C-alpha cells in the first residue's frame, strides 16, 4: 500500500496534468462542434508549438513563455486558414470521414517536417527554474508543472468567458447548435467557423508551450497525445466542452494514480479502456447531449 504522501503527490500531479488535458480537449471539442471534424492534427500542432518554444529558448535565448506572443496569433491564423482553405472545400456528405483523412495528412506532414528540420533527436528545455519545487503537505510540486497548469487554467477561463460573455461567443455557440438557424438570424457562420477553428488551434499553441516546460519532446510524440485526447472527448461526449474538461480531470487523475502500481506505460491504457467501455455501454458519452448521440 503506497504511503499517504505518495498518494497525495499523485493526486496533485494528476490534477495538474488533467488541466492541460482539459485545455487541449476543449480545442478538439470546438472543432467537432463547429464542423463535425475529428481533428487528428491537433496534437501535431501541440508538438510544433513545443518545438517553437524550445527553439526560441535555445537559439534566441527567450523564455519559452514569451514565445506564446508569437505562437498564439500564428496558430490562430493557421486555424482560420485551415478551415477556410482546406476543410470548407470538402463535400458535406462525407465531411466527417474525409476531414479525418485530411487532418491526418496534415499531422503526418507536420511530423515529417519537424523531423526534417529539427532531426529526431530528443529535445528538452533547460530552465533556470526547471528544477525548482516546493512542498505542500509532504508532496513535492515542481514549479514548471504549476506554471503549465496555470497557463491551461487561465486559457480555459478566457475561453469560457469568450464563449459565454461576448457577442462572438454567442455567435459561435449558435453556429455549433444549429448552423442554418444561426445563418437565418444574420450570423456569418463561415467567418465564425473559421475563427472557432483558430481558437481551437490557439489552445494547441498554449498547450504546447506548457508542455515544453518540463517534457522531453520528439517529432512522433504527438501520437502519444492524440490517443488520450480522443478518448477524453468521447468519454466526455463529443461536442461538450464541460464534459471534455470533466473527463480530462478524471482520466488525468486516474492515470496519475495508476502509475503507482502499474508504471507509466501501462497506466496509459486507462484512456483506451475508458474509451472502449464508454462506447460499449454509453456511446453518447457521459456528458454529451443530443449532438453526441449520432456520432
Amino acid at each position, binding site marked *: 500500500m503506497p504511503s499517504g504522501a505518495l498518494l497525495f503527490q499523485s493526486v496533485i500531479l494528476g490534477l495538474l496534468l488533467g488541466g492541460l488535458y482539459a485545455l487541449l480537449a476543449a480545442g478538439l471539442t470546438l472543432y467537432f462542434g463547429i464542423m463535425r471534424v475529428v481533428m487528428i492534427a491537433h496534437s501535431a500542432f501541440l508538438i510544433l508549438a513545443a518545438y517553437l518554444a524550445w527553439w526560441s529558448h535555445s537559439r534566441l535565448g527567450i523564455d519559452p513563455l514569451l514565445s506564446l506572443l508569437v505562437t498564439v496569433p500564428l496558430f490562430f491564423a493557421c486555424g482560420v486558414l485551415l478551415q477556410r482553405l482546406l476543410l470548407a472545400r470538402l463535400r458535406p456528405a462525407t465531411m466527417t*470521414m*474525409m476531414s479525418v*483523412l485530411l487532418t491526418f495528412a496534415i499531422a503526418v506532414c507536420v511530423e515529417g517536417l519537424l523531423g526534417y528540420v529539427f532531426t529526431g533527436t530528443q529535445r528538452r528545455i533547460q530552465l533556470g527554474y526547471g528544477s525548482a519545487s516546493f512542498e505542500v503537505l509532504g508532496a513535492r510540486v515542481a514549479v514548471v508543472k504549476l506554471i503549465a497548469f496555470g497557463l491551461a487554467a487561465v486559457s480555459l477561463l478566457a475561453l469560457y468567458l469568450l464563449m459565454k460573455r461576448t457577442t462572438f461567443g454567442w455567435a459561435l455557440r449558435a453556429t455549433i447548435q444549429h448552423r442554418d438557424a444561426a445563418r437565418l438570424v444574420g450570423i456569418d457562420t463561415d467567418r465564425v467557423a473559421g475563427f472557432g477553428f483558430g481558437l481551437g488551434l490557439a489552445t494547441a499553441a498554449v498547450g504546447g508551450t506548457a508542455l515544453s516546460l518540463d517534457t522531453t519532446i520528439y517529432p512522433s510524440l504527438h501520437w502519444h497525445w492524440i490517443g488520450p485526447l480522443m478518448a477524453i472527448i468521447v468519454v466526455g461526449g463529443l461536442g461538450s466542452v464541460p464534459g471534455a474538461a470533466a473527463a480530462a480531470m478524471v482520466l488525468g487523475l486516474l492515470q496519475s494514480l495508476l502509475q503507482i502500481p502499474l508504471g507509466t506505460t*501501462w497506466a496509459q491504457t486507462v484512456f483506451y479502456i475508458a474509451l472502449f467501455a464508454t462506447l460499449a455501454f454509453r*456511446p453518447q458519452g457521459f456528458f454529451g447531449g443530443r449532438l453526441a448521440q449520432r456520432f
Partner: protein
Amino acid sequence: MPSVSRSSLGYLAATAVLLVAVLAFPSLAPNPYILSVGIVVLNYAVLSTSWNFVGGFIGYISLGHGALAGLGAYGTGLLVTKAGLPSFVALLAAALMVAALALPIGYAALRVRGASFVIVSIALVLILLLVFQSWASLTGGSRGLNVPRPFPDLLRPEHHRVFFFLFAGLLGIAMLTWWAIDRSRFGLGLKAIREDEDKAESLGTPTFSYKLVVFVVSAFFTGLAGGLYALWFGDLDPVFQFSILTGSYMVLMALLGGVRNLFGPLVGALVVGSALEYFKVQFGDTQLHLVATGLLLALVVLFMPDGVLPAIGSLAARFRPAQSSIREVTQAELRESRLAERGPVPAGAGANGKEDRG
C-alpha cells in the same frame, strides 16, 4: 443493357491482363530484390483490398487496420514459436482469432456513427503498440520476434517465388469475396448504409449487424495478410507492425485507386507501393517520406476523393457518345428496364426517381 455488358467485358479483360501479369512477373523479375518488391506490393494490395470491405462498402474510414494486420502477424508468429503449430495452420488460426477479436472491437466502434469509429481505430493501433512493446516476456518487446520459415530448405529466390504466388492467391480470394459481396443483397444493404445510414435503417436494413459482419470479414482478410507477411519476412517488430502509417497506406492506396471499384485498391497499391519502395531506395530513411505521404493523401482527399479509376472512366466517357455518366446504372437505363419489365407505363411515371449522390 449495353453499359453492363461493356463493364463486365472490361472486368473480364482486366482480370485476364492481371492474371497474365501476375503469373509472368516472377520469371520476368531481373533479380530477387525486384521480386521481393513485387511481394511487398502484393501484400499492400491484399491489405488495401481487405480495408476496402469497410471503407468501400460502408464508407467508414479505418486508420487502424494496420493493427489488425499486426495482430495477424504476431498471432501467427506466436502460434508457430510458442505453440509449435505448423505454419499455415497457425496462419489460419491467427486470422480466425483476429476476426473473433474484431467482434467486440466492432461492437464498441460501430454502435454509433463514423466519428467514434475513426477514434477507436486510431486508439486500437496505439494501445496494441503499447501492449506489444511492454509485454516483452511474450512478444519479445522491442527486440522483435523471429518467425521460422515454413519452407526451411528453399533458397532465397525460390522462397520469394513461392510467397509471391501465395500472396497472389490470397489477393485473388479477397477480390473474389469483395466481388461476391458487391453483387449480393448484403452488399446492397452495405452500400445503402454508405449513402445514407438513416434512410437505410428506416427501410429495414439491419445496419448495425451488417456493419459488424463486414468489419469482421475485413479483419479476417487483414489478419491473413499480416500473418502471411510474418511467415515471409520472418522478423516482427512492434514499431512496424503496429504503426499508424501502415493503416494510412491502406487508406491512401484504396482512395487513390477508387474505393468503389474492385480493382481500385490494387491499382493504388501498385502506384503507392512502388513509389514507397522507390522513395526508400532514392532518399533513404529521412523524414521526408512522411511529408510525401501526407501531401499525397491530402491531394487525393481534396481533389480526387473518388480515386483514379473513376476519374479515368469519366475521362473515357467524355470521348464516348451516348454515355455521359459513370454511375453503374443510369436513371434512363433504369427506366427502360422497368418499362420492359412492367410493360407499358404512363409516360413520366418511371422518371421521377431521385438522383443518387454518386
